[in-house]
Every structure is written in C-alpha cells, then in structure tokens.
C-alpha cells in the first residue's frame, strides 16, 4: 500500500497523534516523521531535499510557545497585544516559508495547553483578558494564513469537544508532555484523513436517503402526509426538520441528495410537495427511486442515471435490514450505522467524515440545480424524440476560458474528481498544476457549458503541450453531467483548431485506461479520431479540420488569441 508521508511539527509531544495517524485503518495510509520536539520555528525554516519532502505537514503548536508574551500576559498581565501579534506574525512567516516546499499544510488553531486559573469574569475583556488575547491570536493566525492557498487552518475546538468533559489530560502532560486526551487526537486523525481523501478526489458526492422514519417520522403510506412527524411543537418533528436543514445546507457545498424509498411514488412526492414543514423540496433532490423494488438495485440505477460511481455514494436508512442489504450488495457504498433515535440524526450526519473538499466553487453551489435541469432535458428528449433535434432545441453554448487564478480551483476539481471522460487520469495538486501551466509550451482551457434550460458551469478541461510539431493532449476531461451534449466534440474541435492556428502538424491523444474511463475510449473511437500504434494512441492530422458540432455555439475562439504563451513562442 502506498503511504503518504507526513511531517509533524510541534512544541509538545505529538507521539500519540502520530501513532493514531499511522495505525488508523482508513485510507490514505500515512507514515509520519516528527521534527524535534519544541523546535517549531527552526523545523519550519529548515529546507528539504527532494527525498525528505513530505506529502503534507501538520504544524500543531501551543499559543504559549508561539508567543511567550501571551504566556506572560496570561500569568502576570504583563505584556501588550502588539507584541503578541508580532510573535504570531513571526510564526506565520515561518509557516508560509514551509508552504513553498510542502504542497499541503495543516495548522490546528490554538487552545491553551493547560487549564488556567485566570479570571473567568475578565477573560474576554480587552486589553489583557486571557481568552480575549487568544481570540485575537487565532484571528491574526487566520488572516495571515488565508493569503497562502495550500495551508488550511483547522478548528481545534471540534476535536476538543469530542473528548467531552476532559479534553486535556494533566497526567499525560506531566508524565509525557502530551497535552490532550487521546480522544482529541483520534478525532483529529479522522478529520485530517477526511481532508486528505478530499484532496485526492475521494470525497463522497451523493447522499441517498430513505423517507419513512429517516426524513420524517411515520409511514406516509399508512398515516398520510398530514400525520407525519415533521417540524411543529414536537421534539421528534423538530429533529427531523433540523436533519433536513442540515442536508439542504450540504447541497450548497455541492453534495447531491437523492431518495431511495419503498413507497408509492405519488404518495411520497405528494408529502414532499404538500407538507408545510417539509424543508427539502423536489428541487433539492438530484433524483429518486420510490417504488417497492430492492433498494440495492434502485441505487445502482439512480447512480447510473446521475453518471456517478458507487464509491461516491452514502446511503442513509433507519432500517438495519436495508442497511445490511446495501452494505452486502454494494460494498463501495458507504452505509453508516444510523442511530435509532431521530434526535441524534443531525449529529450522526455531522459526524460523517467523507465530504471534505479543498474548495467550494460556483459550480458546487448550483450542482443540484444542474441535475434538476437535466431532468427537464430528459423530459424534453422524451417529447421531441430525435437526439439531434433535441440537441438543437437545447441551444447549447460552450465558452472556452484560459485557465487562470479565477477558475483554477474549478479546473483542479475537474482534474482530480472526474473519472469517466478522462483521457489520462492525471491527478495534480494546486502547486503541481500551477507549475505545469507555467511551462512555456503548455496551454490549459476550461469549458463552460450552458443551454436554455440551465447553466452547468465549468464542466470540461483541456490541456495541451507542444512536443516538436505535435500538440499532445495531456488532460481531456469532461464532467459526466454534460456528456452526450456534443461538448466532447467541441473540445476536440478546439484542440485541433488550436494546433492548426499555431502551425502544428498533428494532435495526439494517449489514452491511459483505468477502471472507470472506458467512456472516454469509446468516445474517441466513435468520434473518428484515427488510432495509431495499437488501440490507445489517437492521432489527428492537423491539415484536416474537425468541425464544431452544429448544435453548439462557441462564440469566442480564445485559443486562437495572439498573445498566448505557447503560440507566441512558436512564432518568435
């Protein structure tokens, strides 16, 4: 198994944290290296050789160590805020320096290592209340670090809360200089691993929900929608409504919701539409299967319809029998144990650590709307009949943009999360992608797709590198949400037209097979792109045009602009 390497930097003993990180059974596997304890700044400023460079770093320091003035101030009220903040700035400068060498850095926020006996009443009062100072330090830390994109400040209070009444363990502190109870470290490990999975494109994207006794209390088929427990002056009803609110909030992070329920569809949809306390509406669901069929089979169908993989799915159901069935039939689906008490549902949802992503893009916030638009498109196809007529009726528009700071987050998301229409499945982190694009013979474009039924946002990415007289396609990715709408052909048109415009002789695409990208190969074969050297190398002679599909409008040929780096280099 491939391990990620972690560098741990701290002024206290992170031995327990390090051991939990290494022994935790969830992916990714991690091998830790700890900088000498107590030498935070020197460890941060120490340069790495290539062999030493870790995949990520955790810099978990104490406020007392970073700012001796804070420690003095807290104990004796001797010091001033400006000095404390200057010490925070020094620490942040060292962290920023490390960020030049390490792709990903986590910095847990500050909490005092030891409980203090300072005044509670005056703790939040300026200028020298101890809690107030710590708050100021954390805000300064956040403001300083937000300027650096590959460092993430993590909220330690979530980990401290997980340990209940005793997040600190004085015995571990005095015996081994371990400040926190092991529950704190265990929760930290779960969170950090969840973040790492997110960075590697492993975040779950779809929550499939049962209805009866999951989204509302009661069996709608038996009691009717009017008698369901949902909202109102009822503890259980309030809990169900809160659970729905939490789910809806997740849709704003790009997580899709779907329904898998054994009910009559008309009855269930009537409840969703008519119950006045229903937080989630039909428009909040990307799709559903509401019938009496096997839930595992329904999940497969719905996931296929949404063009996702089973490994993107979380299935939530109050019934242990249904959970066991799905778990056994579909091991890729995450089926969390679910509490019997509905008042624990919101917490159970919050404790799922599988949805972290490095950024939330505009496309994420409107993802559900895109799927709802897709339902309208499918309905239109049913009405119109012919695919070509349907595509023309959609009035598809593709806007091509050079990848830049404004769209790089989304481009990176596509690069690391798209599986099916993916030529080479090249995965890069932010720094690697930026470095690659900085090459003088390389170009990357985003493809923004819209039609009269909705905006799909940036859905495609194309990267090309000049090698001699050839335009080598390095990345050719398209979100499954827009597959089959002639965007694939539009991207080929852009690649070939670009090669022609800068005088290259051919365009070459090397298909790298994975378990999931067969649709990409099928498209290339279907698109008339000639294969050479076996099945996986496709070469287009740039003397021939590749026409823009009739159904697509592509208004600005930005790939032909005169000031592009690669094109300019070729002509100068």
């Amino acid at each position: 198994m491939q391990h990620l390497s972690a560098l741990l930097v701290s002024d206290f003993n992170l031995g327990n944290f390090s051991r939990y990180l290494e022994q935790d059974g969830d992916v990714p596997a991690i091998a830790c290296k700890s900088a000498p304890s107590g030498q935070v700044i020197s460890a941060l400023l120490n340069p790495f050789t290539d062999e030493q460079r870790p995949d990520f770093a955790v810099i978990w320091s104490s406020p007392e160590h970073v700012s001796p003035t804070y420690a003095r101030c807290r104990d004796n009220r001797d010091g001033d805020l400006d000095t404390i903040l200057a010490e925070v700035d020094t620490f942040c400068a060292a962290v920023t320096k490390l960020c030049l060498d390490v792709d990903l850095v986590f910095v847990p926020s500050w909490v005092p290592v030891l409980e203090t006996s300072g005044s509670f009443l005056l703790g939040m009062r300026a200028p020298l209340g101890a809690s107030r100072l710590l708050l100021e330090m954390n805000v300064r830390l956040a403001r300083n670090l937000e300027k650096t994109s590959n460092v993430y400040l993590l909220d330690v209070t979530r980990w401290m809360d997980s340990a209940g009444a005793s997040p600190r363990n004085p015995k571990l502190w005095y015996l081994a200089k371990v400040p926190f109870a092991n529950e704190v470290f265990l929760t930290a490990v779960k969170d950090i691993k969840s973040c790492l999975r997110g960075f590697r494109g492993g975040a779950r994207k779809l929550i499939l929900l049962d209805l009866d006794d999951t989204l509302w209390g009661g069996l709608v088929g038996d009691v009717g929608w009017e008698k369901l427990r949902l909202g109102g002056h009822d503890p259980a009803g309030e809990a169900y409504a809160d659970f729905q609110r939490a789910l809806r909030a997740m849709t704003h992070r790009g997580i899709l919701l779907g329904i898998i329920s054994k009910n009559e569809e008309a009855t269930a949809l009537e409840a969703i539409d008519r119950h006045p306390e229903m937080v989630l509406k039909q428009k909040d669901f990307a799709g559903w299967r509401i019938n009496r069929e096997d839930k595992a089979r329904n999940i497969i169908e719905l996931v296929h319809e949404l063009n996702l993989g089973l490994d993107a799915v979380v299935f939530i159901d109050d019934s242990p029998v249904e959970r066991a069935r799905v778990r056994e039939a579909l091991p890729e689906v995450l089926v969390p144990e679910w509490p019997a008490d509905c008042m624990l549902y919101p917490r159970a949802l919050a404790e799922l650590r599988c949805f972290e992503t490095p950024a939330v893009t505009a496309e994420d916030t409107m993802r559900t709307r895109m799927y709802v638009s897709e339902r309208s498109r499918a309905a239109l196809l049913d009405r119109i009949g012919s695919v070509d007529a349907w595509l023309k009726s959609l009035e598809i528009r593709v806007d091509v943009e050079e990848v830049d700071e404004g769209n790089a987050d989304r481009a990176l998301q596509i690069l690391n999360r798209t599986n099916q229409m993916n030529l080479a499945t090249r995965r890069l982190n932010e720094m690697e992608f930026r470095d690659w694009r900085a090459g003088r013979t390389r170009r990357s474009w985003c493809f923004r797709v819209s039609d009269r039924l909705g905006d799909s946002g940036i859905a495609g990415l194309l990267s090309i590198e000049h090698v001699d007289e050839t335009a080598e396609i390095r990345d050719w990715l398209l979100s499954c949400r827009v597959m089959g709408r002639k965007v694939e052909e539009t991207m080929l048109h852009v690649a070939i037209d670009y090669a022609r415009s800068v005088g290259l002789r051919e365009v070459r695409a090397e298909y790298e097979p994975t378990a999931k990208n067969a649709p990409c190969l099928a498209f290339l074969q279907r698109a008339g792109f000639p294969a050479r050297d076996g099945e996986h190398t496709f070469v287009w002679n740039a003397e021939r045009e590749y026409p823009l599909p009739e159904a697509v409008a592509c208004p600005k040929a930005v790939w032909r602009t005169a000031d592009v780096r690669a094109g300019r280099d070729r002509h100068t």
Partner: protein
Amino acid sequence: MDLRERVATVIYRAIDEVNSQLPPSDRLEKTRDTILFGREGGLDSLSLVNLIVSVEGLVEKDFGRAVPLSIAEMLFEPDSPFSSVGALGEYIVLLLEGRGVKSQSEVR
C-alpha cells in the same frame, strides 16, 4: 467475578486502547505474564504512560475509587510493579483492598 479477575479485565481493556496505537508486531498480548516494561522488553515509555493513565481512569470508573498509579516513584524502573500485567494487577488489588501500600518496595 472476584476482584483479581475484575482488575485483570480492566487492564486488558487498557491494553486494547494502547494496542490501537501500535503496529501489529508490537501489540501486547492479554495475559498475566505479558511483560509491560523492563529489561526483557515490553512497551516504550510513552506507551507505558498511556497504559497507566488508561488503567487509572478505568479503575476509577469501574470501582469508584482513584488508584494513583502514575505518581508511583518507580514508574520506569525495570523492577517496578508495572513490569508485567500480573504484577500490575496485584498492585491494584492491594490498593483497592486498602492495604496501605505506602511505597513501591512493599509490592516488589
């Protein structure tokens, strides 16, 4: 279940907690003869501290009495009462029975 068995159960639970931090090859067996610390092997000092602190917490929870193991002077001495699971159990039983252990030498 007599007192010795109850104490052994508590120690084994603490061993489970410590084992969750260790690679399979370093994990402790749950037997009376298992060496915890000393010249013949066993745990490193951080793991021993984790074990002792965990045992203290579990004893207090299960027996409703605090047994101050971690202040013992001989914590890291090779012939301390923490040298094996059996010795640790006997030491805790003495403390729980209130037989007035004043120093480590009484249980050695």
